[in-house]
């Protein structure tokens, strides 16, 4: 098990990812910028917190891609289940950071961090099954879609955006849960594509 952890570099990469996540939460929790919308032609206020899961998703993917593919693809151990466990652990850690920051900072902006991380991670895993390592760009592409197309003229985010929705929005929470579940199912059911 420890060799699997070392092979994934989880003992180094995930702490770095979580440290970066925490630092970004502390730095950016109340940063809002007006970004252009292609849909409305106006600017909309977009919190920087929407981007905070990106480094953790990147680091998680980097960890998952660190594989001894020859041995793991013919393994008798449930390596993919362990990978799914690693994914869930990363999402759970992000959720803890978000809730903790929300309690300490009281800004409310950090509360949906876990939900957003779950959503983006699930999406990335789904894309990864088809595209391989370039799936690491999925969270950024989704963010761009939200910025350009996700807000109406009153600045309200559409249902599909998930990220900027209120922390207690049940639709966003359900979407995040479903997307993460789909990502994990794909992760368990398919062999990851590799560059080689």
């Amino acid at each position: 098990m420890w060799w699997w952890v070392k092979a994934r570099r989880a003992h180094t990469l995930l702490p770095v990812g979580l440290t970066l996540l925490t630092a970004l939460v502390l730095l950016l929790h109340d940063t809002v910028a007006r970004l252009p919308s292609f849909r409305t032609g106006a600017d909309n206020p977009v919190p920087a917190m929407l981007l905070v899961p990106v480094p953790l998703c990147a680091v998680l993917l980097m960890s998952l891609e660190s594989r001894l593919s020859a041995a793991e693809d013919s393994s008798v151990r449930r390596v993919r289940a362990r990978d799914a466990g690693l994914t869930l652990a990363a999402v759970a850690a992000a959720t803890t950071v978000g809730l903790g920051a929300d309690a300490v900072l009281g800004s409310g902006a950090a509360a949906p961090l876990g939900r957003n991380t779950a959503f983006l991670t699930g999406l990335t895993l789904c894309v990864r099954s088809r595209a391989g390592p370039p799936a690491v760009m999925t969270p950024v592409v989704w963010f761009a879609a939200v910025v350009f197309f996700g807000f109406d003229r009153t600045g309200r985010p559409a249902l599909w955006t998930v990220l900027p929705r209120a922390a207690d929005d049940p639709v966003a929470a359900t979407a995040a849960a479903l997307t993460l579940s789909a990502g994990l199912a794909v992760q368990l059911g398919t062999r990851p594509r590799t560059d080689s």
Partner: protein
Amino acid sequence: MTLEMRSCTYAYRPWAPPVLRDLEYTLPRGLTVLVGPNGAGKSTLLRLAASVARPQKGTITLDGTPSHRRAYRAAVAWLPQRVIPMTGLTAREQVAYTGWLKGMGKRAAWDAAARALARVELTEEAETKARRLSGGQLRRVGVASALVHEARVLLLDEPTAGMDPHQRRVFHDTLGALTDDVRVLLSTHDVADLAAAADHVTVLRSGRVTFSGTPAGFLAHAPADSAPGRVAEAAYTALSEGQWARG
């Protein structure tokens, strides 16, 4: 114990032509050397037999056990064409990890890794980070990984690539020391390997087996005027470029 491939067809992409088409193959006892021109499908055959990839059509079984079952995977070891050094793992850890993946317990895998590295004369580099090993050393780590869990079937893709002559000899001695009930399928471009105690030769061409038989039967396909010492090469050329034949 029999490893059988029945009507196996495999293409890397749905729109690409199959690399192996309706392949029928039974791995003989002992050491089988697999030869063929580049692109013949040797590595693909090994990947399928190692259960790393699944054929789009056909079946692969080991004593009737399908290739996707744990029992099949536990019994089969594979050395790929390229051994990837794992960041953060030492040579011994990488070998032990492979053993653990193949179902060995942690302690057993650790001890077996040391023994496997000793067999390929890499004990001194056991604690060296895998990324710092030379190409030849990495290859030997791969061979050790294939030997660590004492598989019943060894699938070795160009195992001696990058090894010096001494290491090649050590490698062949290692193979020779394997027990009789271990079946080895060794893919190589080095026809000199044929001379090193091969029990069988299989020639693959364009995804089909063009020859499967004894070394003597293989060498018999060399033209009569072949230079001594180049007979194996001549036979290889004749079989990989010429008519279909069975030995």
